[in-house]
C-alpha cells in the first residue's frame, strides 16, 4: 500500500469522522452511555418522583433477587419457554426448508405463504391468536370436532404459556427456514449423487449429508433462537394485559423487568440489576451453545 501524504491523511480522517458522526452520537448517547448508566443504576435505589434521585445501596439489588419469588417464577417460565421453543422451531425450520428445497412445483408460492407470520407484527399475531384461543374460539372448535379435549387457553395457568409457545413456534420457524434455504443451495449436488450411487434413500441423504452440512447454520439458528426466546415480552404482555397472569403463568424475565422499572415505584434500580443478570445469562448460554456445537463438529 502506498503512503499517503499528511495533508491527505488529515482530510481522510476528517471525512471519516464526518461519516461516522451520527453513529458516534447515537452510540455514545443511547448505547454506551446507557450501558455505563445501567451499571450505576444496578447499585442504586432510584426515585422517580419529581426530580429523579439516586441512593447508593451496594449489592442490595442483586441480593434481593435471591428472595424474589416472582423473579424465580419468571426465570422458570422463561427457561421452560426457551427449552421447548428453540428445538421445536429449529427442527420445524429445517424440515420445512428441506421440503421446500426438494425441487417441487410451486416453491415460490409456498415460500411467500410461509413467510407471512414473519412479516406480521407481534401485536397483531398475538391478537389474532387470542381471538382463536377464545373459549368458544376456532381452535377449541376444531379440537372438539376431531374429538380432542378443549382448553381455556388464555385463562388457565397450566395452559397459557403453552398457548404462547405454540403461537411463537409457528411465527418464528419460517424466518429460520429462509436462512436454512439459503444454506441448502450451497450443498454441492455431487454429494447427493455419490450417496445415490451408494444406494442411499431420501431419509439417509437428509440425515447423513444435509444435516451435518448445515451444522454451522444450525448453530447460528440456535444462538439467534436462544437470544430471541430469552427476551420474550410482547406476546406475554399483550396476552396477559401486562400482568403476566393468569397466576404469573406468562410472567417472563423481561416482563418482570418492565414491571419493576415502569409500573412499581422505587424499583427501577432493582430492574436494572435484573436486566444485567438476564444479559449475563444470555451471554453464558450463547457461549455454552457455541462451545458445544464446536465440539460436536470436531468429532
Amino acid at each position, binding site marked *: 500500500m502506498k503512503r499517503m501524504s499528511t495533508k491527505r491523511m488529515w482530510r481522510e480522517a476528517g471525512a471519516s469522522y464526518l461519516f461516522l458522526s451520527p453513529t458516534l452520537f447515537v452510540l455514545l*448517547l443511547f448505547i454506551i452511555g446507557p450501558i455505563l448508566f445501567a451499571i450505576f443504576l444496578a447499585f442504586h435505589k432510584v426515585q422517580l418522583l419529581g426530580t429523579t434521585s439516586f441512593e447508593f445501596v451496594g449489592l442490595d439489588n442483586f441480593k434481593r433477587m435471591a428472595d424474589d419469588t416472582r423473579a424465580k417464577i419468571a426465570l422458570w417460565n422463561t427457561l421452560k419457554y426457551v427449552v421447548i421453543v428453540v428445538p421445536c422451531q429449529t427442527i420445524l425450520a429445517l424440515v420445512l426448508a428441506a*421440503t421446500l428445497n426438494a425441487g417441487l412445483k410451486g416453491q415460490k408460492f409456498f415460500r411467500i405463504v*410461509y413467510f407471512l*407470520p414473519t412479516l406480521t407484527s407481534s*401485536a397483531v399475531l398475538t391478537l389474532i391468536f387470542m*381471538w382463536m384461543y377464545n373459549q368458544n374460539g376456532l381452535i377449541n372448535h376444531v379440537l372438539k370436532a376431531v374429538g380432542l379435549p378443549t382448553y381455556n387457553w388464555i385463562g388457565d395457568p397450566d395452559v397459557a404459556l403453552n398457548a404462547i409457545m405454540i403461537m411463537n413456534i409457528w411465527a418464528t420457524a419460517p424466518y429460520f427456514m429462509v436462512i436454512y434455504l439459503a444454506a441448502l443451495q450451497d450443498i454441492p449436488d455431487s454429494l447427493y449423487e455419490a450417496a445415490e450411487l451408494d444406494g442411499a434413500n431420501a431419509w439417509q441423504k437428509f440425515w447423513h449429508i444435509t444435516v451435518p452440512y448445515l451444522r454451522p447454520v444450525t448453530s447460528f439458528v440456535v444462538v439467534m433462537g436462544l437470544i430471541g426466546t430469552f427476551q420474550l415480552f410482547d406476546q406475554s404482555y399483550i396476552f396477559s394485559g401486562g400482568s403476566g397472569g393468569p397466576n404469573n403463568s406468562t410472567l417472563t424475565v423481561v416482563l418482570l423487568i418492565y414491571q419493576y422499572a*415502569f409500573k412499581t415505584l422505587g424499583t427501577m434500580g432493582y430492574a436494572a440489576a435484573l436486566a444485567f443478570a438476564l444479559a449475563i445469562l444470555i451471554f453464558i448460554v450463547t457461549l455454552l451453545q457455541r462451545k458445544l456445537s464446536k465440539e460436536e463438529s470436531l468429532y
Partner: protein
Amino acid sequence: MKKKMGIGKLLLYAVLITYAVITMIPFLWALSSSFKTLEEIVSGTMSFIPKKFTLDNYKQIFVEQELFPRWLLNSVVVAGTVTVLNLLFNSMAGYALARLQFPGRKPLFLIILAVLMIPAQVTMIPNYLILKQLGWLNSYQGMIVPTMVNATFIFMMRQFFINFPKELEEAAELDGLGRLGIFFRIVLPLARPALAAQAIFVFMGSWNDFMRPLIILSDPQLFTLPLGLNSFKGQYISYWNYIMAASMVFTMPVLVIYAFFNRYFIKGISFTGGK
C-alpha cells in the same frame, strides 16, 4: 423405483400443503372476522365466509375511533423517518469503516460488533431516564433518534463495501470528486440491492416495534399502531370484529411492501443471517 419416488413426492407435497394451510388459517380467520357483524361474532358460529358481509367494522375504527388514523400516521412518520435515516447513516458508517483510514478505526469497529450482542433490556431503563432528562418522552424525536443507526446494518454495509471494486472510486477521484461526492454519486447508487434489503428490515422493525413506544409514549395522540392496537383491545375487549379489522389495516402496508420487494427479503435474510 419409479413408483416409490412418486409416493415420496406426494408425501412432500402433503407436508407443504398442510403447513401452508396451517400458516394461512389464522390470517384468513382474522380477515373473515373483520367482515362479520358483531352478532355473528358473539353467536360463535365457525364459518370462514361471513353470513352477512359488512364493512361496518372498518368504518367504525376509522370514524368512531378518531385516534386510529392518527396512530396510522404516527407509525408512517416514525417508521419512514427511521428507515431513511438508517439507510443514510448506516451506509456512511459502513463505508468509513470499510474504506477510509483514520485513527481509532479498529477499536471502533470492535465496539460496534460488541454492541450487537448487548440485549436491549440493559439499555432500556437508562434510555428512558436519558430521554426523560432531554424532555424527549412522548415525542417523535424520542422514538426516532435512538434508533436512527443500527449496528447490524452498519456491519452489513461494511461487508458490502469491502467487496466493492475500488477502481470506480479511484476513477471518480481522478475526475476531481471529493469523498462526499464519491460516496453520494458513485458508491451509494451502486449499493441499491443492499439498501433495499436493509430498508425492508428497518421499516418492519420500526413499524412492528412494541416495547419502545410502550415505554416512552404515554400520550395516546402519539401512539404508534402496535400500542394503539393494544389500548384498543382494552377498550373494545369483546368487540373482536373491530380488533380484527384494525389488525388487518395494520398488516396491509407490510404485505404490500413484501409483495413488491419479495426477492430482497430473502437476500436480506441471508445477508444478516446465514453467513
